[in-house]
């Protein structure tokens, strides 16, 4: 693993508080994930790729924005790995780069849909902004 990757890996692990080494590669997270077909990289791959420092492809993948933050993977993981927190941390490490907000507060009223639960709006806002 080169130095840059290693730093990024440490940063993501620190931000998320996740220990990817606890993963036993069962795939239950990806089995339960409702956004599986939308995601290029699946929750178990996030865990595996962060652990091996192969983070570059994740940074550039729109999987970061396809995750619904439903936390099903967190709920179901038998090893308490919490994959969604890793997805979130990788996402944060991208959008924390200046000027890369994908959503501002002003855009929200236009997007609101009566069917959408409050929680999803909060989650989306957290996801697409710093």
């Amino acid at each position, binding site marked *: 693993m080169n130095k840059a990757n290693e730093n990024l890996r440490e940063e993501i692990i620190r931000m998320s508080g996740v220990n990817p080494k606890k993963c036993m590669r069962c795939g239950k997270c*990806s089995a339960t994930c409702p956004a599986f077909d939308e995601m290029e990289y699946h929750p178990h791959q996030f865990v595996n790729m962060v652990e091996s420092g192969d983070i570059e492809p994740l940074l550039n993948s729109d999987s970061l924005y396809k995750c619904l933050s439903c936390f099903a993977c967190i709920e179901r993981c038998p*090893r308490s790995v919490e994959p969604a927190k890793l997805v979130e941390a990788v996402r944060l490490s991208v959008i924390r780069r200046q000027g890369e907000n994908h959503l501002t507060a002003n855009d929200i009223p236009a997007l609101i849909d009566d069917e959408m639960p409050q929680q999803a709006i909060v989650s989306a806002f957290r996801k697409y902004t710093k």
Partner: protein
Amino acid sequence: MQRIGVFVCWCGSNIAGTVDVQAVSEALKSEPGVVFSANYQYMCSQAGQNMIIEAVKKHKLTGIVVCSCSPRMHEATFRKTAAAAGLNPYMVEIANIREQCSWVHKDMATGTEKAIILGKAAIAKVNLNTPLTPGESPVTKRALVIGGGIAGIQTALDIADAGFEVDIVEKKPTIGGKMAQLDKTFPTLDCAACILTPKMVDVAQNDKIRIFSYSEVTEVKGFVGNFDVKIKKKARFVNESLCTGCGACTEKCPMKKVPNEFNLGMDNRRAIYIPFAQAVPKVATIDPDYCNMLKNGKCGVCAKVCTAGAIDYTQKDEFIEEKYGAIVVATGFNPISMDKFDEFAYNQSKDVITSLEFERLTNAAGPTAGKLLRPSDGKHPHTIVFVQCVGSRCDSCAEKGKEYCSKICCMYTAKHAMLTRDKYPDTDVYVFYIDVRTPGKSFDEFYRRAVEEYGVHYIKGMVGKVSPEGDKLKVQASDLLNNKQLHIDADLVVLAAAIEPDKSARPLATMLTASMDTNDFFTEAHPKLRPVESPTAGVFLSGTCQGPKDIPETVSQASAAAAKVIGLLAKDKLTGNPCIASSDELMCNGCSSCERVCAYGAITYVDKEFRMPDRTTAIRRVAQVNPAVCQGCGACTVACPSGAMDLRGFASNQIIAEVDAICK
């Protein structure tokens, strides 16, 4: 003053290579109490031992110090030598100048200096040694086996075979345990009943074995060789000695809707029942929760149809007190509850079942007479999904499941999948696995046959969700090797539930003062070298109560436990270890600190009358150590705040004298 002889061993060059043995024996000559000091090539040899015996006689020695190897190696040898010379064996001390000295030092000067210091410490201790005599206790030549599964059955048969009496206490109405519920057994696929029921009959017919079925142990007192046990025989409302097991009552009883626990609630039994055809003892039992006569005083049908006159609605629980020399725990396991695993819809659909339920569904004596039919609609399932590791291998902080691998489910799932494909080639069978663990004789070959010959689809990945929809079960799972999420419309889902120790094991362990691990499996005295003994003397472990096991392993352990019991019961008397704790009653203030730290339950309290300085008497609570139970660990001597507890042979003043000798 003692007259001490010092004997320095060379151990060939093992000691002499790094320790100047001549200098050591010279230096120790002038220590207080020493009247003789010598060195020799091999002290443990016959010649070396004779040298000790002669010196004891010639110099009228009262104590001996041998500077040699670890006491673990030869303390027993030199104690025997002392006894042969007419000395009390506990007047011998060993200074370990090999493992602690010559083997860890390279330099002769350092090695020699340390050897002298260790020798001085041993001499200081012998100066304070007193002769000790081990106590003896008789052995009751009868064993108790708690739990009548295959483990308890095998242990009891082996003990009886050696000529000793054995009682089995089984809480259910019949012995047999989980094996009686299984259909065929891996890896050879013999039918469980065909190999188990002959053993159950052997137990019933063996005149050395008594079975207390529908019974529980309620109290255990005493210690190795001398346990006093109270057994509660629950009222079954049927006179065991009159009932012939004809089953007429079980056919006529009008209470027909009682969930049948033997078939895991998949069909019903009557209020009066015999669990299964080959039950031992084959005696009916009335379930008081459902019997109309016992609940409302109305009915009495079974008493009318019973030609043997065995029904007794007035029967009461009975208590039996018996003495035993050894106790074997064989309380087995149970699959964990699936209540917390909502994702698998176990409580939503009858067609999501556990593997043990699957055994009953394929068993010729089961609710479907051996036909694999869906519990919901009785139809033949075409697509079956097996899920491994349900609740096993979970993180310790996960709120459901167990941390360990349940060990048996990979193999029985392969068995279920293979047998299904064999009997019903038109079914599609999927097995979702995280790993397939098959480390046993002929085990991996068995699993490979399921894949290669029987065409079972093994998919690396886990099932994430099962949702009942119409008459299908929508299974959403991951296929990790293809990086896909699969959606399967299944007719039946089988969960390989983790196993856990029986819930009654924890209170039983408390009664026995036997230790358990955090998962409530009984702990062995040593994980490698004493796997069938509990750390509590006289208590032995058999089968899955000690950890997950399949039948071959259970039976091996059961026979091993029997061998240990036989070894104990073959003795007429047990010689204790005299190096045990004792309390000075005048100093003891009855605070219970020692009782709390004693891992073996050796300490009890008695009220004693003491004469006070002013000539009045007072009653005080003081600690007493049971010499047969105390293992001499010394924990109590450290815990005692008043200095009343001391360990014979390792008394506080002896240890301090050793430390002083080293630090001088």
